[in-house]
């Protein structure tokens, strides 16, 4: 389970998140919605441990802060790789390109990282398996021979994030506006894949989005509305439908 308690985050000295608390249980899907500038992406980066997103510590310095917990471990002081190794996976809105690092090689290194000590598939088995997974995502397997996200279209990048998610096999995933810039077919494919994988493997899903449309295929157990760095409302899937219709202006 991921537990966020009174999370306050500064970016460049400015407080963006002003005390956010929420929980995501294994296999549960929680949607975070909110207007531009509400702090949604800040939440994603702060959870993953990006150094620019600084957790504001409690004034009482005697108490060790416990703002972010995953599977009973406190992540607050951990570096991004340590958090990842606790089972946290961030699917990015803007995946970064690394030329010359082939997708195939990267994915296998990722697989080895998550399945150490000679367990699991050999390279040749892995290659066959990953091609199959790419096909299921409707991602052209030829892309696996290219540099990581290098010259990929928006849709291809997002699908590759999901392919990494499948290889990574996390406890908890954060989807940061994974639906932005996707055509309807790609959106559907990605959302359905995440829903299936999360259900099968009991992965907690925090899906950050502007729009209801992804939630039609990745059905949330709860919807949370973030505005001005605070949670202003929470409810069931109905809330997302209502927001799509009426906007955020009534959410206070």
């Amino acid at each position, binding site marked *: 389970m991921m537990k966020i308690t009174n999370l306050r985050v500064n970016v460049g000295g400015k407080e963006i998140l002003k005390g956010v608390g929420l929980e995501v249980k294994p296999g549960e899907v929680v949607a975070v919605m909110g207007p531009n500038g509400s702090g949604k992406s800040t939440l994603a980066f702060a959870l993953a441990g990006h150094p620019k997103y600084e957790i504001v510590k409690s004034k009482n310095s005697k108490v060790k802060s416990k703002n972010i917990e995953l599977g009973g471990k406190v992540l607050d002081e951990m*570096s991004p790789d340590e958090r990842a190794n606790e089972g946290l*996976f961030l699917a990015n809105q803007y995946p970064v390109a*690394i030329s010359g*690092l082939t997708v195939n090689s990267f994915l296998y290194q990722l697989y080895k990282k998550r399945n150490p000590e000679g367990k699991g598939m050999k390279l040749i088995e892995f290659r066959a398996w990953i091609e199959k997974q790419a096909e299921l995502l409707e991602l052209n397997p030829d892309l696996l021979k290219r540099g990581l996200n290098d010259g990929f279209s928006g849709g291809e990048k997002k699908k590759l994030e999901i392919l990494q998610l499948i290889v990574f096999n996390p406890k908890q995933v954060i989807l940061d506006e994974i639906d932005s810039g996707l055509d309807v077919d790609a959106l559907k494919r990605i959302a359905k894949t995440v829903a299936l994988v999360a259900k099968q493997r009991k992965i907690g899903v925090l899906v950050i989005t502007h729009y209801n449309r992804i939630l039609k295929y990745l059905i949330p157990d709860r919807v949370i509305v973030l505005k001005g760095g605070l949670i202003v409302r929470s409810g069931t899937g109905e809330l997302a439908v209502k927001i799509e219709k009426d906007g955020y202006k009534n959410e206070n």
Partner: protein
Amino acid sequence: MTRFAPIKDTKPEDTNYSPGEYKYGFSMPENYVFKAERGLNEKVVRMISAMKKEPLWMAEYRLHAYKLFLDKPMPDFGADLSGIDFDNIFYYIKPSERTEKKWEDVPADIKNTYDRLGIPEAEKQYLGGVKAQYESEVVYGSLINRLSDMGIIFCGMDEALIKYPELVKEYFGKIIPSADNKFAALNSAVWSGGSFIYVPKGVKVDLPLQAYFRINSANMGQFERTLIIVDEGAYVHYVEGCTAPIYTTDSLHSAVVEIFVKKNARCRYTTIQNWSTNVYNLVTKRARVEEDGVMEWIDGNLGSKVTMKYPAVFLVGKRAHGEILSVAVAGNGQHQDAGGKCVHLASDTTSRIISKSISLRGGRASYRGLIRMNKGASNSRSKVVCDALILDKTSRSDTYPVNKIDENNVVLEHEATVSKIGEEQLFYLMSRGFEEHEAEAMIVNGFIEPIVKELPMEYSLELNRLINLQMEGSVG
């Protein structure tokens, strides 16, 4: 270095040398024992030639080159060479008399690297300079038999001079005359070791010829001299050096490599140097390419204190093509001044230089290149791409491209990028569970991948692992 400026006043006999007298002074008593001594003078040059029982012309060639070496100024560009003490260098040591070092004397970091790379024990001893001989007779012997059946000559340069004197004389020093530069002159005076390859017309060698197989013949000497002749329509790939660090206490490595690519022939020459960081590595490499011929230099510089090396291609025949792929890694205390030169002398010739440099931990990497298109090189094209990756604030990268164009109808493209490892790239990879140094190594390996993929597989794997080790050291 100023020690060499007023040389004419120091030793009159050096400048009064005349070839006529030489042949009388040349013969040595049978029981002459060569005593290795530091420093260079005419006597040492004569002794080197005598020890090798060389033909007279070579002895004369050496002595003439020695004079040129004294007269030539130090290069007025590139790296700082003031640390070279020419008087404190052994210019020739008989292979059998090489004093063997003790394994205990090999620096711990180098030993550690051997272990991490999984280098076999026998090779470790050789690379660490502990053993002068590397037991590879079996591999080497069968390879040589196969090659000689195809009419290929592949032997040490010293051996070639004795066995094939006419062939050597026809080509030796013809692309890199001893007057070319101070270090080419030095090599011409004191050269020892190196490879000689002749590939007959139409013969294509399907496996790379590696100096590694014959390192027992003192190939990786300080002043090696390599000569490769690829006759019409033939092909050869020669690989020199190795990715594992070579520990040596010799502080100067100054080689000369000359390559003749005849009509329709192709030669690929791959070098990976990883000298220990006390070495000045000053090498002159040049190829002459005839009509429809192709020359490819693949040049990797990882080690040494200072490297100055600009493999050159002279495109003398129509439609000849030259290619230089260069990768340099400059770490703490290192200056890699590398690049390439393409000289277009005939029409419809093409060339391409791709240079990738990485500087880290205060290292300095420079790209220095020349594209020259002479009158008559009409309809020629050249493309230069140099990319630099700087890993930290204390490191430095420079680019010194020179273009000389005397023909109108030509195309020259130049692209250069300088980049730093971005925080976003690091975060992205770290958020996948990779430690910072692993993430850095992934980015660096990706950066040099276009060149690494051209290397023979065992080299590319070892190079990737070396980069990983270096990153581990830079972060941790």
